[in-house]
């Protein structure tokens, strides 16, 4: 039984719904935690703010990160994840609408594990999520835990 969570950082409720649906259709049963902005995502990962007291050693299996976010934007969230020893090896997949070269380049430069552009066609989106889940949740060898 896979109990690892997936952390989805996404502010658009429609996209949250679609992503949940795409995961469900791809038979990815991992529990989905949704944070609506960059600050909340960081709070969740580092046990601050509303998530104070959360066991921060319980890292999600995968972070799905949108780039355009209120408060702290996606690239900043990624930078902070990579800057902290506890979350440095956490798989982060950028899931966004933007295909601007600068965003793709900045994402990879900051250590994103994948960059997926959300297609308009939902079936393609489901396919992308399916591949994503198969790779990151099944095939990929988990990174060793960082001892704190």
């Amino acid at each position, binding site marked *: 039984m896979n109990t690892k969570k997936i952390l989805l950082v996404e502010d*658009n409720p429609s996209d949250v719904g*679609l992503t949940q*649906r795409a995961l469900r259709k791809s038979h990815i049963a991992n529990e989905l935690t949704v944070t609506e902005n960059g600050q909340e995502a960081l709070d969740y990962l580092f046990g601050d703010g509303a998530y104070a007291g959360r066991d921060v050693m319980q890292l999600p299996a995968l972070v799905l990160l949108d780039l*355009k976010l209120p408060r702290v934007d996606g690239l900043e969230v990624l930078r902070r994840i990579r800057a902290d020893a506890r979350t440095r090896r956490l798989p982060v997949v950028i899931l966004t*609408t*933007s295909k*601007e070269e600068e965003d793709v380049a900045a994402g990879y430069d900051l250590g994103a594990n994948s960059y997926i552009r959300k297609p308009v066609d*939902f079936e393609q989106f489901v396919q992308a999520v399916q591949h994503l889940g198969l790779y990151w949740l099944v095939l990929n060898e988990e990174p060793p835990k960082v001892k704190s």
Partner: protein
Amino acid sequence: MGTKHTSTGNTITRLKDAVRNHFQTKILVISLGGMLFSILLSGLIFFLGMRKLTKDVFAEVALDLEIASQQHLESQITSTAERINLWMRHAQADLRIFATITQQLIDHREEFRPMTEAIIEIPFFADKMQYYPEGGYSQNAPDEPTVVTLQTLYHDETARIKPHPQQVINETAILDLFMPAIHTQGAKKMWTYFAGDTEAGFLRLFPWTDFGKEAIENYPEQMHISYWTFFPGLVEAWEKGLETPDSTTGIVTFPPAIDATSGQAIQIFGHPLWNRERTQFAGAVWYDLALAEITNIIEEMQLTQTGFAFLALGDGNVIAIPEHGIQALGLQERILGDGHLLRDLEDSRERAVAALTLPGDDAVSFLELRLAGRDHIMVMRRLAPMNVFLDGAEQIAVQYWTLGFVVPKDETYAPLIAVQTNVTKSFKSILLLQGGLLVVVAAGLAGLMFFLTERMTRGLAELSAGAHQIAQGDFDTQVEILSTDEIGRLARMFNEMAHQLKESFDRLEHWNTQLKEEALERQLAEKDLQESQERLRLVLENMPVMMDAFDAEGNILVWNKACEWVTGYSAEEMINNPRALEWLYPDPDYRQQMLAQWAERGGDYYNWEWTLTARDGAVKTVAWSSISDRFPIPGWATWGTGVDVTKQAQVEKELWKHREDLEEMITQRTDELNVRVAEVELLNRAMTNLLQDFQAANAKLTSMADWLKATNQELESFAYAVSHDLRAPLRGIDGWSLALLEDYGEQLDATARQYLDSVRAEAQRMGQLIDALLHLSRVTRAEMQIQHVNLSALAQAVIARLQAEYPDREVEVHIQPDLMADGDATLFEAMLTNLLGNAWKFTRTRTPACIEFGVMAYESENKKEDQERKAFFVRDNGVGFDMAYAKKLFGAFQRMHKASEFPGTGIGLATVRRIIHRHGGQVWAEAQVDQGATFYFTLKENL
């Protein structure tokens, strides 16, 4: 002395302040003016750029929306038309089944006889005919599946059924088994019935109804005539069709009618039956279909907000249209005697509608109409052909129904207007932001400028004050060096200059002293000259040298004292005495000789000796010298001196020499002075030039580069917003439509599912269009890196990719090797991908498909260029296009072919054109429908 120093000090300070303020004001005015100008210019460029961009985007989106809405309407009308056609085909297929079964019963009448005789014994099939004397008809019992009603004329005198009709009743009793099934399946029918031949023109009808009673109550005469009486000429028309079996032997229909029993609009379909040999009419099978099934679809169809659909018969009678559609088309209703409703397009109050021609082929036709002051788009499509029996003409003819959509034009643009409002809003906020930014940066720069000029002008003021002091004659002035920059260097140079100036002024002063002394000398010399002239006059008068003068006639005008002494003749005697020369030269020969030689030489003689005779007879030799040429005196023709004394002549010569020397000296000194003055002027000019250079260097400080960069960044973020924000809702539309389909699909009917599919297809298409637009925008903005590019190699790579993508295609490709051009390799590749991709796409239907890439010489249309230029070309043997549309070819979202035939976004050639234009070239195409197309492009050489 102390007091004087202080006042000079105050003056200098005041002067410094004044000069400094003056300089500072000038520099500030020039620099700030330049800066403001560049700010305003870049602001203007940004504003115009943004406005053009939004305008272009709207124009392109508007065009696409029009095409998209046209395509949407086209697909909608096509699917609706197919739906109605399908309904018709269903109905006709049902009727054919019914006809085939019944025809079998007739064809195998003899073989089935035992069965027929057995069946009529079975209560289910048996028709228990009962005679109703009040109406004169027979009818079977209500518990039968079908009703059989026999009119009076099929009875004999004893009210018994005649043998032939009875036989037909018996033979068709088995239809009780089929008719309920045929009636309830397939198209929704009101009545399903059989009619016997002309000798048995009664009906067997499902479902059972008291047909006889209704007839007696409403149309009693029906019970006395054959069914066929209602359709005069129909049987004959069917029989006539036997001769030409291809057209009118089959199913016929009639204009919609009102059903007598139910009062509903019905559509009647009939199929004839024949004897076994197909030579004689043997009856027919019929359906009455409820037309409401079709008219409801039309009347409830929702097109935009107020758009509507209508259905018109072949003669233009509109049989289905919603209430507001009747208003919009200006239709007038007429109710015929049989309760039939007539709404003819020809009778419309709208002139455009009355003049409408229904489509003559199966293509979807578009036209624009102005209805009630509002622009509408009308879309029409012809439905499947039907054989219609025309009552009046008594013949069967092929007729078509027409399906039409009418949509107000402005409603199709509603999404564009919404987008436009939003973009205008963000455009305004960008402008506001840009303006605010401009003000802040301008204020910052102004502060910086003030600080800089303050520093600069302090040095300049020092300089100016120093210059003033120099002007006052204080050449010891040295200015304070305040900085090490240009101003500091200038101050140093100024000090050096002041030092040199002082030296040159010292030298100048020295020369001036010299000059003054020389001028004094000259004054003395002039005084000497005046005195000598006076002396000369006295000498001339009293000198022991003779001096005389003659007029033109040879009379003596002047006769000095020496002349008197030498000749003994007084001046009074000689002046104006015509005989004077006779007295002096008494020998006429000698006198004549002298006069002749004198006349010859004129005034050109010197120490010319002649002998004269004095009063006392003494002969004296006088050496005459003429001076009339050198000192001509008006009135004196010649004058001269005469003496043998050479001493006077010597004195005179000395005198002349002295004068000449003096003049030469004055000229020399004056020249020297001029040279010194020029040197001082040169120094002054050098200083002025230095100041001007400094000002020019200062002006360059305000550069526009930063502003252009900022403008570009704004454009980038606009494109980014378009990419992200416009795509997100589209993904929502697509995703939730699919969710609806998947989760609630079973609760939706086929039409609803089809609508959802359309919604998804349109959302995805909009996504592709946004991507294409972004690509086009990127092609326009990207910075070009010019290099020498091998176009042939690029083309080869593009073809290889296409072949890999479509491995089943067989295409002959000819690429001229090593075609080189200067330009951006990435843009060239995008261009070739579009051109070769098009060639690949439009040769899909060709075997073999041929694509060629090469270069050829062409003569420029521009006569000035005269020289031959080369044009690259991409040629294919594909479907080509009509040259009438060649001009539109390169616009964004322009498409020459149906999307279903050759898919694409319509942006490729617009991209090609921008790339070619950015490389200073031209692009054009030549083509013919079905004869292939050739795209030519030129590139500017030596970019």
